[in-house]
């Protein structure tokens, strides 16, 4: 299945996805959409792990397991982040990062 697809194609896709996520992180002002951009970035890193494991070390499992661990960490991270966002919304009535500046020194 993968013989006809070079490794560089997969790396191009994951690189573009990573920088699309960074663009979203820089231009969004809503905490939930910034979290979605972070999910995009984590996902592109996962694609890289899986592609390197498949193409360069097909005997090993390390990239596969690292991708699974990243998925678990992303689930934990988004659960805690959404709890914090809901708490911020209760206190500030908004989840725009421009309005949440009470702790600014």
């Amino acid at each position, binding site marked *: *299945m*993968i*013989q*006809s*697809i070079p490794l560089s*194609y*997969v*790396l*191009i*896709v994951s*690189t573009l*996805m990573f*920088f*699309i*996520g*960074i*663009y979203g992180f*820089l*231009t*969004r*002002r*809503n905490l*939930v*959409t910034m*979290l*979605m*951009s972070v*999910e*995009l970035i984590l996902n592109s890193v*996962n*694609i890289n792990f*899986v592609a390197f494991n*498949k*193409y*360069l*070390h*097909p*005997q*090993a*499992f390390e990239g*596969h*397991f690292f*991708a699974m*661990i990243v*998925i*678990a*960490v992303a*689930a*934990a*991270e988004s*659960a*805690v982040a*959404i*709890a914090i*966002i*809901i*708490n911020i*919304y*209760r206190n500030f009535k908004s*989840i725009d990062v421009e309005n949440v500046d009470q702790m600014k020194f």
Partner: protein
Amino acid sequence: MLDQVSFFVVSAIILIFAVMSVTCRRILRSAVYLMFVLIATAVLYFMLGYNFLAAVQLTVYAGGIVVLIIFSILLTSQISERAVMVPIKQKILSALATVAGAILVLMVVLAFNFKPSTAPVAGSNLLPVADSTMVQALPDSTTATITNPTVHDIGLALVSYKRDGFALPFEVISILLLAAMIGAIVLAKKEKLPANTEISDNTNNDSTL
């Protein structure tokens, strides 16, 4: 040929919906676009042969995290609400920085000569033994003899504490998930402090929303 076509289609879906997800002004729509990106990534994992990882991606990412994000959007904003965008100057600067970074990384990645490792993993007793012997017997068809990890292999590797086992990361992830679960419950719980009038006012307003 068919593989390449399907790979290009999946990549186009990933990239187009990723761009739409970060540029769409309606938050709920961009969450749905993010779900399309995650599902297309699971298809990519299926194409690479990692079926279990694709299933995990579908259930945890496209199932769990997207539902969590959509719930938080519904809890914190109106459905028809448009996202506040940054000024156009900052947007252009961000796009320039992003494109420059992407070009730099792509140049490095495409110039590097990746060499697949042909040596079998030393001391691996979890992998199928047939791999190494068959590779030595048939050196021309090394890629054909490499089998994809089955659920049996993955389960053995996850609880094995030998050289190629992943018991320690498995336990660390379990503790991290437990801590995140408790932390999320404690953080999102409504505070019951009758003395603090400000907080009780906020909670009363929340219950009417």
